């Protein structure tokens, strides 16, 4: 299973947000989507999920996305929007259970399989101890983990997460990325948009870079985290080192006046 976007163009209220973005996420991998504010990361993810009118092609397992029915899409692609919405004082376990909706037969409640999958998703995002709390009363970071667990519980071959790690404490950021690696290893394709270059470099198999609405370069973290990209796209200078576990990217200053 894979998901791919080829030469996506999107215009939102007259502004050309995407002008030729292409990306490919293979099963078993975690791909990080990076780019400065306003580069079009959210727009690309929404186009991939089919929630946006876009020119270009989105292929799920080499099938055009628009040829798939609404119900079939919901069993193939889970999408976690950047905006965290929880409408009512619904318990965390019920929120996570909403992820099972595409797999439900009409009028039949949760079966054993649903409970197992929800439980695993909640363990992965460390929200089991919150299960009976009203989700809208949790902190921002806790809500992010609950909603990510909801998307994981959808149990789809493709998971698209728009900035799921923002607002999380360092331990939970790392736990979340480790969780994504784990579900990728179990045979899913995961695309995560991130702002934290350190986190992205260390935990993603591949990185894609969006700059002014187009994808520029991309590849393994070591190929992407080079001064030209860091300076040209992000406008920063960073110290890049390697240890036994992988890459360490540490921004040290703006590109123009590198170093403190």
């Amino acid at each position, binding site marked *: 299973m894979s998901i791919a976007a080829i030469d996506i163009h999107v215009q939102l209220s007259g502004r050309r947000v995407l002008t030729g973005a292409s990306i490919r996420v293979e099963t078993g991998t975690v791909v990080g989507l990076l780019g400065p504010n306003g580069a079009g990361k959210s727009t690309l993810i929404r186009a991939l999920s089919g929630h946006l009118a876009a020119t270009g092609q989105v292929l799920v397992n080499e099938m055009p996305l628009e040829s798939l029915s609404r119900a079939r899409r*919901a069993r193939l692609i889970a999408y976690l929007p950047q905006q965290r919405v929880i409408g*009512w004082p619904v318990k965390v376990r019920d929120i996570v259970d909403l992820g099972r909706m595409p797999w439900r037969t009409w009028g039949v409640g949760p079966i054993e399989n649903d409970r197992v999958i929800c439980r695993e998703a909640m363990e992965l995002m460390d929200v089991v101890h919150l299960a009976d709390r009203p989700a809208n009363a949790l902190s921002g970071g806790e809500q992010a983990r609950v909603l990510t667990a909801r998307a994981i519980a959808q149990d789809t071959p493709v998971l698209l997460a728009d900035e799921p790690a923002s607002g999380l404490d360092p331990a939970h950021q790392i736990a979340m990325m480790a969780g994504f690696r784990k579900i990728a290893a179990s045979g899913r394709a995961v695309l995560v948009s991130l702002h934290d270059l350190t986190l992205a470099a260390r935990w993603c198999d591949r990185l894609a870079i969006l700059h002014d609405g187009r994808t520029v370069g991309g590849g393994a973290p070591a190929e992407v985290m080079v001064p030209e990209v860091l300076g040209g796209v992000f406008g920063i200078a960073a110290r890049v080192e390697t240890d036994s576990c992988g890459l360490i990217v540490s921004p040290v200053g703006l590109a123009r006046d590198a170093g403190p």
Partner: protein
Amino acid sequence: MKPTLWAGLLGIVVVLFATSLLVGSAALDPATSLRGLVGQGDDAAAITMREIRLPRAILGVLVGASLALSGAALQGFLRNPLAEPGVIGVSSSASLGAVVVFYSGVAGVSVFALPAGALLGALVAVVVLLVIASGNTTTLTLILAGVGLSSLAAAFTALALNLSPNPFASYEIIFWLLGSLKDRSMAHVWVCLPLMAVGTLLILACGSALDALSLGEESAASLGIDVARTRLMLVGGVALCVGAGTSVTGAIGFVGLVVPHLIRPLTDCMPGRLLLPSALGGAALLLAADIVARLPWFGNELNVGVLTALIGAPFFLWLVIRSRREGF
């Protein structure tokens, strides 16, 4: 939903329905009432029971249930605890329709003229809202469109009152706007029942979509929900329920606001699973309010719409204050 909640709500509705049949200005003891209801005993009791109290109690159940169902559905869809059937402008447009019929003098032609006018008003509101809601607009647009429609309907109603040819006509118009279950017949029941049935089915069919929408429209869509279709079904269902109710009883406000809030803490707060319990709660609330309204308080019967507004408006304000303090 918990069986105890079902049983409790159903029990309350049954008890209030029976009480509604037994309370009234005609002094009938329960035994006579019961005989009258099944068509035995003297004619006066039979007429009182079957032509006055029975339709009144049935309308209490139907209108109360459909108003609260509509309120629960709207709150769920808009993710807004302040949403109410009045919000989308159907109540006020239906009232305007009734007022126009009254003002033009067509009301004297047939007993169905008034309901027909109110239904027409509701229909116009629905069509306008459908045109706006079928575009890919946000829920905020829907609310604002409702506010606009309500204001327009209120302005035209005020205009009708302004231009009213005689004080008696204004009195009748005001009386209609206050809403009442008094002096309705089985014909009124048959006018609104089929419309409410269709509207109720449309709303109930949106149950799981409403659950998903508590995560926002994008997440709901990613779960396979057709948000645009859900929006159309809800606007149609709510318009049918509220329009049919208003066409028979006049505007009865705040039932759709108060009931979902009273019932929600007793459920798991999922908007879809709140629908049916709210309908039962609405039936109970309107039956209770109507019983209280018909007790001889000041020598006169109160209009049940006045009573629900007296309870509902402070409740609304309290919700506003609470939501300002701790968010929704």
